[in-house]
């Protein structure tokens, strides 16, 4: 499956249906239009939205169905709302029902549609869809689900035999200062979109559908992608002002994805074939002290220059780094596959800022998201090396941590998130 718009929305399905939220407003919103007309100027705001434009014409719907879940190799969107859930229900059937309901909702929302009525339902009932994404484009929304280790616990849902070997309990790495209230979770949903309102709406809807069965354990908003899966673009900068992750796997590099990201048929857990593993880390940056660090030192720490992002001794961002030219404890040198027996991960991290921390310091950093075929060969060896030696550690601290097995894609309209696991 490729990212971006595909045949699904440009072709038959798109022409027949998959209207955008705007289009829905057009034909479903007759009542509203009348009201808006009466209100005068408001009608102008909706005027342009009443044409029935399929989502694809806006170039903004990522197909939900496919061999792999969207939101991994898909071109990285601008915004993130990530949520980890604890499962409260003890009933396997209830959990399965929820996953089916979530899938149906995700199918609608990624196509730019509301989940049920917004303003045309019973007046006595709260609207089914909360409505804040009405009139917005699909905005390349992707929703990606993951299953945490807790789901496979003994005497819970009968899944203990299906826990993949690679879904390990992450060790405590040196320097970790993990807040349990920002770590772990039985389920996670990663919502990425170009419009923050669309991403937030999606998580809010899923949380609402889940009340009584699951609870939000923690969530994280991200506002600026820090890595790209489209190497023709320049690598986005992190909160330290540096390009990091230049060598990320391209979303179109099938060979690299098969090798490093997608779980293969012989990897051990058949239900996970076509899926992946996700490690999420909330990495706080000591922004103020970093900002007082001399330029040369900043560049030495990363092993790249700040302006172009070129590795030490090279002139272009994408020039092959010569690791030995970097300081032994430079971040890029330590994180590079060559320093880690070829360990390669797909990064989709986002910058975050959650205001200030009460001490006047910016509560900001990197919400690191890494997808890989096997965490034991991906994130873990890399992080062990970084946690031990990276000079960047003086300026960062890992404060949240979670790991999830990410099931394969939802194949068609009858398929649902987790079918291969629960079936």
């Amino acid at each position, binding site marked *: 499956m490729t990212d971006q718009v595909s045949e699904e929305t440009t072709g038959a399905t798109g022409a027949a249906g998959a209207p955008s939220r705007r289009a829905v407003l057009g034909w479903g919103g007759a009542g509203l239009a009348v009201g808006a007309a009466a209100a005068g100027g408001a009608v102008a705001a909706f005027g342009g939205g009443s044409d029935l434009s399929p989502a694809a014409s806006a170039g903004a719907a990522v197909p939900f169905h496919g061999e792999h879940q969207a939101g991994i190799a898909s071109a990285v969107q601008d915004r993130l709302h990530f949520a980890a859930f604890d499962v409260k229900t003890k009933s396997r059937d209830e959990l399965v029902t929820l996953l089916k309901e979530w899938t149906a909702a995700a199918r609608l929302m990624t196509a730019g549609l509301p989940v049920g009525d917004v303003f045309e339902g019973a007046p*006595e*009932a709260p609207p089914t869809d909360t409505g804040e994404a009405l009139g917005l484009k699909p905005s390349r929304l992707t929703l990606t689900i993951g299953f945490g280790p807790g789901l496979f616990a003994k005497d819970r849902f009968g899944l203990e035999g299906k826990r993949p070997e690679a879904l390990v309990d992450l060790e405590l790495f040196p320097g970790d200062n993990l807040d349990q209230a920002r770590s772990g979770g039985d389920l996670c949903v990663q919502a990425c979109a170009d419009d923050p309102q669309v991403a937030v709406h999606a998580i809010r809807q899923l949380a*609402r559908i889940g*009340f*009584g069965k699951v*609870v939000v354990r923690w969530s994280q908003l991200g506002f600026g992608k820090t890595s790209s899966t489209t190497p023709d673009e320049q690598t986005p900068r992190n909160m330290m002002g540096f390009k990091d992750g230049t060598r990320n796997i391209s979303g179109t590099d099938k060979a690299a994805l098969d090798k490093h990201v997608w779980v293969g048929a012989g990897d051990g857990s058949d239900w996970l074939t076509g899926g992946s593993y996700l490690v999420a880390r909330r990495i706080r940056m000591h922004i103020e002290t970093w900002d007082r660090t001399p330029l040369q030192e900043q560049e030495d720490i990363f092993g790249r220059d700040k302006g172009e992002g070129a590795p030490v001794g090279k002139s272009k961002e994408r020039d092959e780094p010569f690791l030995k030219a970097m300081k032994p404890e430079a971040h890029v040198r330590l994180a590079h596959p060559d320093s880690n027996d070829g360990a390669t991960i797909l990064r989709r991290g986002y910058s975050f800022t959650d205001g200030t921390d009460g001490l006047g310091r910016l509560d900001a950093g990197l919400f690191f998201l890494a997808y890989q075929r096997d965490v034991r060969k991906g994130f873990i060896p890399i992080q062990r090396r970084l946690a031990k030696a990276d000079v960047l550690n003086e300026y960062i601290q890992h404060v949240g941590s979670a790991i999830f097995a990410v099931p394969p894609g939802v194949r068609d309209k009858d398929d649902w998130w987790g079918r291969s696991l629960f079936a």
Partner: protein
Amino acid sequence: MRPARLTVLTAAAAVAALTAVTGCAEKSDKAGSGAIHVNATDSACEVSKTEFPAGKVTIEVENKGSKVTELYVLFPDDRIVAERENIGPGTKATITAEIKAGSYTFTCKPGMKGDGIRTQVKATGKGGTEKRSPELDAAVAAYRKYVQEQADETLPKAQAFADAVKAGDLEAAKKAYAPSRIGWERTEPVAESFGDVDPKVDVREDGLEAGQDPAKDWTGWHRLEKSLFQDNKIDDNDKKLADTLITDLTEWQKKVGQAEITPTSMANGAKELLDEVATGKVTGEEERYSHTDLVDFKANVEGAQKSHELLKAVTAKNDPELAKQLDTQFAAMNTLLDKYRADKNGYEFTSYDKVGEAERKELSDAVSALGEPLSKLAAAVAK
């Protein structure tokens, strides 16, 4: 309490009073046609006709008894269509009301007490009979009774609280504080629908409006809560406040039975009770000095559950899955709350300042789990 606003439940008293004064007594007297005469005595309530055309109806009441009386026109669920209080012995009163086709009850209340002397009447003709379900009428009537009972039971408990304050007995007052609020908290959406009472008895300091002086304008339970639990003292002003609280609650007790209650307002009231829990109790904001939030919490849940139980016959028919879900979530909520009290029949709960962050989140999660299906109850009932 919440900031004053129009709730689904509005005091029917105001509506009824308006209806009563809009009629023109002389005119209908002169016309002499169509008026219904009610002869009220200490032991009888004779109605001149029990069937009359729907529309604007004039009722002339003559009190021939020795006690002050009142007359109510009631819907089958005891909602008030029109009323006139304080009809003195030997005096007459005229009530006019817009009455749609349907069945009603005329009720005289000699001495202004009790259920009254009742006569079934019928308004006929056009105007369309309001389609009503007997099950829902029964639910509303039972809920109205519940609300009144809660108010009636609150008064003596509030009196005990006030007495302790007036006696200067700090410990006894502290002990009597939370129990005195239970009836109010159980029926809060109805209780606070009387806009004038709620700000007097249940306002918190931050709920005062701009220009109001906490020293002068802050009255009610929470003002006393602060004296007792924060300042650890009872002064003369507190003793006066205790009397004011009883005066205001007595006013509430008198009015509460007149609240307009409908099946959907019952359902929404249940949801609002959970909203109260979600915004005020789970955060520990409501009882910030006494930390008796879990008592209010329990009472709110009980009030919501009462609505659910009374409406269940209808909910189970219209949306069986929802009825089941509510049963499950109420049970889960109650089980969770029981963890915070040793005596399952008592109202002594763990002080909320001793409830940790993780436990508060667990309580909050349970409130969400119950509140979400509860928000669907009104639509299910209205089907």
